[in-house]
């Protein structure tokens, strides 16, 4: 008995000493992880934000791995990627994971956005988190654009050229913005290093900060309990524990995602086209699918009109919670109208994307 007490007190002594060296209140972690999770989170469409986060972690891990072999210089970039794909152990796998996780991340993000829109999750008091989320969408699309350009094959090189030329059409700051992005008057070795730094340094930092704010705001506001029509959930089952119940579910979803990505990597491994040739533009150039709507828009109107239109649309989407509030107050419209607006906006995006993919 005395022995046991002695052992316990020495353990407490050690803990005490560790907490002196690292004066952190672990009670906070316990409290944060003990947060009860509302029942409706068990429905998969409420887990899309977490899915994006999980895919982002995959991107960080595989991305760091890829930088071990990738060389950001015009005469070696393509060759180093060929080496990763063909020579390095599991190189094709890591690269394909990175590619497919990026695509899935954007899909999951769009779905998350739709879920938040149609459940009204952006309304008072959560307007700010919609704006942060929309910035994250912008960051993710920029990730996609810069990352694809790093491959330095024909399509990605000319994609970078077209993309930076688009920036030139932005009113007022366009020319200097394009010059800054390219590091000169045209796409060159400066562009590649700039895109590389953006892709592995600046954008990840920005993403981490925004994700932190996004999740923090979710926790500060808390999650509203939703009730669905015709669904009877007994009182004791209305909540479940974050740890370990929800955490295990998340880990399981993670494994399933990895299996899905592995299947994608096996069936459609990331390929490699012709190396970049700054002298010759290929016959058919197309951006990645998530820029199709913009690419189609670009062919429908003049450059200036389509760029300004996209920017205006982006600004409205970014500030949508406030725009909607203002319009509702001014014109006294019902929620039904906003559902219709959402459906039409999404259909418009879908039509442009599908249209472009069939042309």
């Amino acid at each position, binding site marked *: 008995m005395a022995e046991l007490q002695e052992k316990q007190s020495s353990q407490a002594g050690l803990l005490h000493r560790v907490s002196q060296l690292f004066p952190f209140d672990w009670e906070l972690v316990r409290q944060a992880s003990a947060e009860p999770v509302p029942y409706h989170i068990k429905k998969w469409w409420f887990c899309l934000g977490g899915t994006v986060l999980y895919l982002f972690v995959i991107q960080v*891990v595989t991305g760091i791995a890829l930088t071990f072999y990738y*060389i950001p210089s015009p005469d070696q970039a393509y*060759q180093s990627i060929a080496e990763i794909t063909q020579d*390095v*152990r*599991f190189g094709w*796998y890591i690269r394909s994971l990175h590619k497919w996780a990026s695509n899935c991340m954007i899909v999951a993000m769009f779905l998350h956005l739709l879920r938040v829109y149609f459940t009204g999750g952006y309304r008072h008091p959560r307007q700010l988190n919609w704006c942060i989320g929309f910035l994250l969408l912008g960051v993710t699309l920029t990730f996609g654009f810069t990352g694809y350009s790093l491959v330095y094959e024909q399509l990605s090189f000319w994609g970078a050229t077209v993309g930076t030329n688009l920036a030139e059409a932005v009113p007022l700051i366009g020319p200097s913005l394009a010059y800054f992005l390219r590091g000169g008057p045209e796409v060159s070795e400066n562009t590649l290093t700039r895109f590389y730094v953006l892709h592995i340094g600046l954008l990840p930092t920005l993403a981490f900060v925004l994700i932190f704010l996004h999740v923090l705001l979710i926790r500060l506001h808390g999650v509203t309990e939703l009730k669905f029509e015709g669904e009877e959930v007994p009182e004791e089952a209305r909540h479940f524990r974050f740890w370990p119940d929800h955490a*295990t579910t998340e880990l399981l979803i993670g*494994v399933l995602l990895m299996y899905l990505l592995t299947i994608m990597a096996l069936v459609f491994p990331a390929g490699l086209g012709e190396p970049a040739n700054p002298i010759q533009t290929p016959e058919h150039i197309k951006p990645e699918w998530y820029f199709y709507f913009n690419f189609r828009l670009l062919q429908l109107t003049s450059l200036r009109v389509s760029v300004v239109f996209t920017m205006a649309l982006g600004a409205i989407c970014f500030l949508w919670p406030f725009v909607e509030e203002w319009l509702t107050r001014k014109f006294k419209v019902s929620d039904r109208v906003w559902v219709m607006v959402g459906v039409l906006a999404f259909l418009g995006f879908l039509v442009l994307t599908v249209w472009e993919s069939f042309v």
Partner: protein
Amino acid sequence: MDETDKSSRRDWLATVAMGVGLGLSYGVFALEGLLFLLPRQIKARTRNLFAGKISQIRVGGVRPFFDLEGNEILLRRKTEREFQAFNSTCPHLGCKIHWEEEEQRYFCPCHRGVFDVDGKAVSGPPADGNQNLTPVPLQIDEAAGVIYIEVKAASRRRT
């Protein structure tokens, strides 16, 4: 055994099964990632560089020539079919050795280092430090009557 015992054992088994499953799944991914980071051990690539014709060297004779990096190489015909080649840089302090026909030895004039026909240091500072001449690998194509030396191929990255 009562009901609670049974159900707690079932819970425990479920936890273990879940833990092992998750551990194995993530473990496989971690292993693949680790293997990715460890570069494969690849044998250094070499290529053959033309050194001379067999008929140009008599048995016992030595013929100097330079490789593409400017290193002088001393090629010696040991017997009718056997050849040897050494880098002419002395392993002691980097002076140039030369072949002495009468003595049948390689000699370094800087500190009087002496090497036998097989490149082994036999007297002078190199012998004290057991510093032998650096051999250069050879490829003999008897059918064509040509001698090649093996040199490192250019890095794969600069293709």
